[in-house]
């Protein structure tokens, strides 16, 4: 939270308290503002929150522990498919949400360890290639496990997933407050996802400022020196992979339940790259960067789709550039500009690995 606060331009440094409240108010009011432009925008915000969770999880692996993972979306897939198997008409199993969510997280975490073991000795480019392969393997499995026994229903995907049900309160149904006032289901999902993101931030911040976070950072900066001060790099790498994967798995469960449908094409390599781009774009290794990066890059294509077509029509009379083409063009442009102007990301803050108040107390002694 503190990183996010100080990232607020102008206000963050001058008046942290005001910046903090600004963030809270914006986070709460965002779907209401989005509703003014149409319901689809609230949906887009919901997806942006899921991307934030993914970016936070990937940032833990790439930014904190320094392990470049190009197959991160596989864990998202594991979470989503776990939900699809255990809460849909596909196998006619309908376990409650609070049972499936931890299971999805646990399976993804295990998948993380499975990936971690064979790549323990790999670094940099080599690691990236193997993780990329892992991501594709998972997707291809999902694509082909429909024969001879139909497990994943292949490329058609699985339909009719249960919605999120919080102790009898179904988020997929509009909440009827009074007779003529109801809260849209998309809002309910938004606030639930927001709570999940806030929870993730708190968890990750606590990990960051702890002996584990410091050991990860040490391993990232110099593995040999980390070993020489007694850090068990094997265990810590596995922990990083599985913790990152757990966040991916949770986001995957939420995604499955929210969308009501999963299919392998949601988990392509491009998605892995998109999440990595969010982390890099925002600023690797700090929580605020992951959040801002995810928010910006999840919203950008949608804004373009909405603005580019009418804008071109009014300017030229007809559509010159398809929004999809424009998206790639602008994304590339944004990346090039970023590398030139802000090579460390939008928010290049250095992550903190110690509580300053502890230091002040020690220094005062």
């Amino acid at each position, binding site marked *: 939270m503190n990183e996010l606060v100080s990232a607020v331009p102008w206000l963050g440094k001058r008046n942290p308290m005001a910046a903090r409240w600004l963030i809270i108010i914006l986070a709460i009011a965002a779907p209401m503002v989005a509703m003014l432009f149409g319901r689809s925008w609230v949906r887009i915000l919901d997806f942006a929150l899921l991307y934030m969770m993914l970016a936070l999880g990937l940032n833990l692996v790439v930014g904190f522990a320094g392990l470049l993972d190009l197959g991160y979306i596989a864990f998202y897939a594991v979470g989503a498919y776990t939900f699809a198997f255990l809460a849909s008409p596909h196998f006619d199993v309908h376990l409650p949400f609070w049972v499936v969510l931890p299971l999805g997280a646990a399976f993804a975490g295990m998948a993380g360890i499975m990936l971690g073991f064979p790549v323990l000795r790999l670094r940099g480019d080599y690691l990236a290639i193997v993780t990329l392969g892992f991501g594709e393997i998972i997707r291809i499995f999902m694509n082909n496990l429909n024969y001879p026994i139909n497990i994943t229903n292949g490329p058609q995907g699985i339909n009719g997933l249960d919605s999120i049900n919080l102790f009898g309160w179904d988020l997929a149904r509009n909440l009827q407050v009074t007779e003529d006032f109801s809260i849209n289901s998309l809002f309910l999902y938004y606030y639930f996802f927001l709570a999940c993101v806030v929870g993730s931030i708190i*968890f990750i911040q*606590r*990990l960051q*400022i*702890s*002996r*584990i976070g*410091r*050991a990860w*950072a*040490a391993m*990232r*900066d*110099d593995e*040999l*020196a*980390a*070993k*020489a*001060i*007694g*850090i*068990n*790099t094997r265990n810590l790498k596995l*922990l990083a992979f599985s913790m990152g994967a757990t966040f991916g798995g949770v986001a995957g469960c939420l995604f499955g339940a929210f969308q009501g449908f999963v299919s392998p094409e949601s988990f392509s390599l491009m998605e892995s790259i998109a999440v990595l781009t969010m982390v890099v774009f925002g600023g690797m*290794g700090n929580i605020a960067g992951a959040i801002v990066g995810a928010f910006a890059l999840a919203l950008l294509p949608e804004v373009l789709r909405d603005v580019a077509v009418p804008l071109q029509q009014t300017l030229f009379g007809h559509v010159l550039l398809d929004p999809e083409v424009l998206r790639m063009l602008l994304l590339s442009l944004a990346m090039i500009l970023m590398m030139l102007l802000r090579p460390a990301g939008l928010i290049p803050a*250095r992550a903190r*690995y*110690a*509580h300053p108040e*502890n*230091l002040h*107390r*020690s*220094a005062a*002694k």
Partner: protein
Amino acid sequence: MITLLEARNVGKRFGGLQALTDVSLTIRKGEVYGLIGPNGAGKTTFFNVLTGAYIPDGGEFVFNGSELPSGKPHKIVGRGIARTFQNIRLFRDLTALENVMAGHHIRTKAGLWGILTQNRFTREEERLTTERAYEMLKYVGIERFAQTVSKNLSYGDQRRLEIARALATEPQLLALDEPAAGMNATETAQLKVLIEQIRHDGVTVMLIEHDVKLVMGLCDRVAVLDFGRKIAEDVPAEVQRNEAVINAYLGGGKHAA
């Protein structure tokens, strides 16, 4: 004198190069033990084998009466051996304080659950870690840079920080690999005071060093390696007079005569 570390017939080969041949030596508790020798003599290799970075081809280390596990650096640090590197290897994006705190990792216990729930034990441990790290920075004299990112420290301070980080693992044996390399005379003199202080506080020191004045002024005993073999081991004054040592450094011997 109590023996702290005993190396028995340690050997290490890299392909066709025999980097260490049957090196045996004994380090006593509380002394400063120098390891010298010409470039490529195998001094750093000895450190790497001792601290588990390399697995020896033969021989063993007995530390405090029991054998050290080979090739398991974190276990060896846990037993009480810490090292620094010839070319400084700090965690460059961490502050000085965080570097030392990372060094304390192996002496702390907080697990995932404790960290996520921030229970009292974890908070208290974290506070103590910070406090000890700050003390350690004070000990080596760079506490005013506690919040400076380590890559921005001056060369001499980086060397000091590396020693502080090694000390944070609470070692009984501190292995310093050329700590005075690249230092000017003043810095070397300050370093000498620091190493004497460390010894005075009960940590045995093993020192690889080229600065003859420093070695002779600091070490209780010195071993000389040449082409991977120990050719001498004695008090500094004797080693200086040793013919094999003079030959190793200046060349000569039979051929020059």
